[in-house]
C-alpha cells in the first residue's frame, strides 16, 4: 500500500497572524494520479502548495513524500527529491531570452545526475523543453526576451521550468489563469500526455470545466478546510461545495 502512494499530507495547518490559511488538511496522492485542488479565492490552495513544497513551514502536521517525511525541509531539497511546482504569479527572468530562463533548473545537481548535463548542451536541452510545451522550435519564439513574450507563453515557460527537473510529482498552481481559450486547449493535451506517461500531478485550478476533463479526483478547500474529496461530478453535487462556490460560480 505504501508503494502506490507518492504523497501523503497529514493534518497540516498554517495560520498567518489571525488568519487560518490551511486548517488540518489531510489527503493522499497515488502514483500516476491527477488530482485537482479547487476552492474559492483565499481558501488556502496556494498556501497548501507552499506547505508541500517547503516555501512555508506548517504550524502542525506532516508531509510524507515517497515514504520519507519532508515537512519543513528547504524548498530546494524538496525540489531535488523530485517535486516541481509552478508559481501562480509568473516572474520569469525578463531580461533573458526564454530558453535561457531554463538554464537555472538545468544547472541543478538533480538534472546533472539524471541527464549528465554538460556545458553547451544546456541550451539545446532548453530549446527541446520549450518545444515540449508548445514553443515553435523553428520560429524565433524560444530566443525572444521573456519580457516580450505574451502571458500565455510565460505560463508555459513556467511549466517547462518544472519539466526541466524531470519531476516525479508536478504541482501546477493555476497554470491556466490568464491563458486564452486556445492556449488552454493546446496546453491540456500536454498535461494529459505527461500524466499518461506516469507523472503524478496536482492541479490547483479555477477553470473547473477544463480541469474536470482531465482530473480523476478533486479536493475542495473552503476557509482552509477540506470540505470534499472525490470524483469531480460527485463532489460538485455536495451542498457544502455548492454553497462555497455560490457567487464565485460566474467567473469560472
Amino acid at each position, binding site marked *: 500500500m505504501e508503494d502506490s502512494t507518492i504523497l501523503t499530507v497529514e493534518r497540516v495547518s498554517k495560520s498567518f497572524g489571525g488568519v487560518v490559511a490551511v486548517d488540518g488538511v489531510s489527503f493522499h496522492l497515488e502514483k500516476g494520479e491527477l488530482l485537482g485542488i479547487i476552492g474559492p479565492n483565499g481558501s488556502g490552495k496556494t498556501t497548501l502548495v507552499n506547505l508541500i513544497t517547503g516555501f512555508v513551514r506548517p504550524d502542525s502536521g506532516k508531509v510524507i513524500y515517497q515514504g520519507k517525511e519532508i515537512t519543513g525541509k528547504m524548498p*530546494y531539497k524538496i525540489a531535488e527529491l523530485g517535486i516541481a511546482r509552478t508559481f501562480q504569479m509568473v*516572474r*520569469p527572468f525578463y531580461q533573458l531570452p526564454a530558453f535561457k530562463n531554463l538554464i*537555472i533548473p538545468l544547472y541543478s*545537481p538533480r538534472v546533472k545526475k539524471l541527464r549528465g548535463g554538460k556545458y553547451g548542451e544546456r541550451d539545446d536541452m532548453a530549446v527541446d523543453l520549450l518545444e515540449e510545451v508548445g514553443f515553435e522550435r523553428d520560429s524565433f519564439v524560444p530566443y525572444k526576451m521573456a519580457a516580450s513574450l505574451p502571458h500565455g507563453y510565460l505560463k508555459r515557460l513556467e511549466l517547462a*521550468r518544472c519539466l526541466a527537473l524531470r519531476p516525479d510529482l508536478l504541482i501546477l498552481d493555476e497554470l491556466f489563469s490568464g491563458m486564452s481559450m486556445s492556449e488552454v486547449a493546446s496546453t491540456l493535451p500536454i498535461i494529459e500526455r505527461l500524466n499518461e506517461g506516469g507523472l503524478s500531478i496536482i492541479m490547483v485550478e479555477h477553470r473547473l470545466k477544463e480541469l474536470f476533463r482531465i482530473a480523476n479526483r478533486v479536493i475542495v478547500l473552503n476557509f482552509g478546510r477540506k470540505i470534499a474529496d472525490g470524483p469531480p461530478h460527485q463532489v460538485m453535487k455536495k451542498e457544502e461545495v455548492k454553497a462555497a462556490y455560490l457567487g464565485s460560480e460566474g467567473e469560472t
Partner: protein
Amino acid sequence: MSVRYRKERLDRGIKARCEDIFALSSYREMLYLLLPRVLPVIALLSLPLLKGVVGLYWEKVLVVTCAIALLALSWDLMASVGLVCLGQALFFGAGAYLTGFLNHSFGWPPFLTIPLGTLGGALFCTLLLLPVLRLRGIYFAIVTLTLPLLLARFIETTKILGGNVGMSGLSPLPGIWFELYVPVVALLICLFGFRRLINEDYGLVLQGIRDNDRAVMSGAINIYKLKAQAVFIAGVAGAFAGAFMTHYYQFVGMPAFALDYSILPLTCAVLGGVGSFAGPTLGAFILVPLSEILRAFGTLRVVFYSTILIICVVGLPEGIFHYIQRKYHQFERLVEVG
C-alpha cells in the same frame, strides 16, 4: 550629380543581422567591438610606465586606486547575487591582518603571505558571513557594516595582533615594478574574470538568485551554497587588496578595517554603474585620483568631493559607464545613399 548621405548608427549593421548574435563583416566592425575592450587594457598596462613622468606620488595613487577598484569589483559581484554589502573593509582587513600576521610571526616572504592571506582571508570572511546569508537587503547590509568595526574593536581591546599599534616593519615588496604591475594585473584579471563568470550559466544562476530566489530554489538549487561561493570569490578580490597593501605599506593596523574601505568601493560602484564590473572600476579611477587632487583644498576637500559626487549621481543615475556605453552604441557614420 551630387552624392547624398544619410546617418547610420555604427552598430546597426552588427545588430540588424541578428538580435543578439554578433555577425561581423568588416574590420571596421571588429574594431568597433574590440576597441572598448582593448584600449582600457593598454591604458592600464602603460600607467606604471609613466613612473618617471608623473613621479612616485601618483604611482602610489595608482596602487591605492587599484586596491579600491578591486574592492568595488568585489562589491559588484556580491550585488549581482543580491547581497548588498556595506562592509568591504571586512575582506580588506581580514586579508591584510592575516598577511601581516604570517609575515610578522613566521617571517614568511610576501610571495607566500600574500596568496595565503588572500585565500585565508576570503575563507575567514565567508565562514563569518555564512550564518547571515539568509538575511536579505538592509539586514544583510547592516550586519556587514558592523562586522569590520566590531573586529577592529575586538583587536583593540584584546590587544592581539598588535592591538591598536598594529604590526610594523613587515617585509617590503621585491621592487618597484612588482609594486606597480601586480595590482594592475590583478585588477585586469578580476575585471575580465568577473565579467566572464557572470555571463556563464553559473553567473546566470547567481543573477537569478538576485532577481527571484524562490524561482531558483524551486529549480532544485541550493541558493545558500551559491551565495557562499559568490562571497568567497568576492572575498578573494577584496582580501587580495588588503594582503597586497599590507606589504606595500609594510604595516598593518586597525585602519585596515576602516569605514573608508567599505564606503569608497560602494561609491565607486554607484558612480561608475552597478552590475557591469567595468563601471565600478571606472568609478574608482575617477574618485580616488579626484580625492587626491582635492587635497590641495584642505578641509574644503570633502565639500568639493561630495558636491561632485552628488552632481554625478543625480545627473547620471545609471552610472557613468552605462551612459558611455549607450552613447558609444549610438555613434553614427555617414553612408552614401543611392
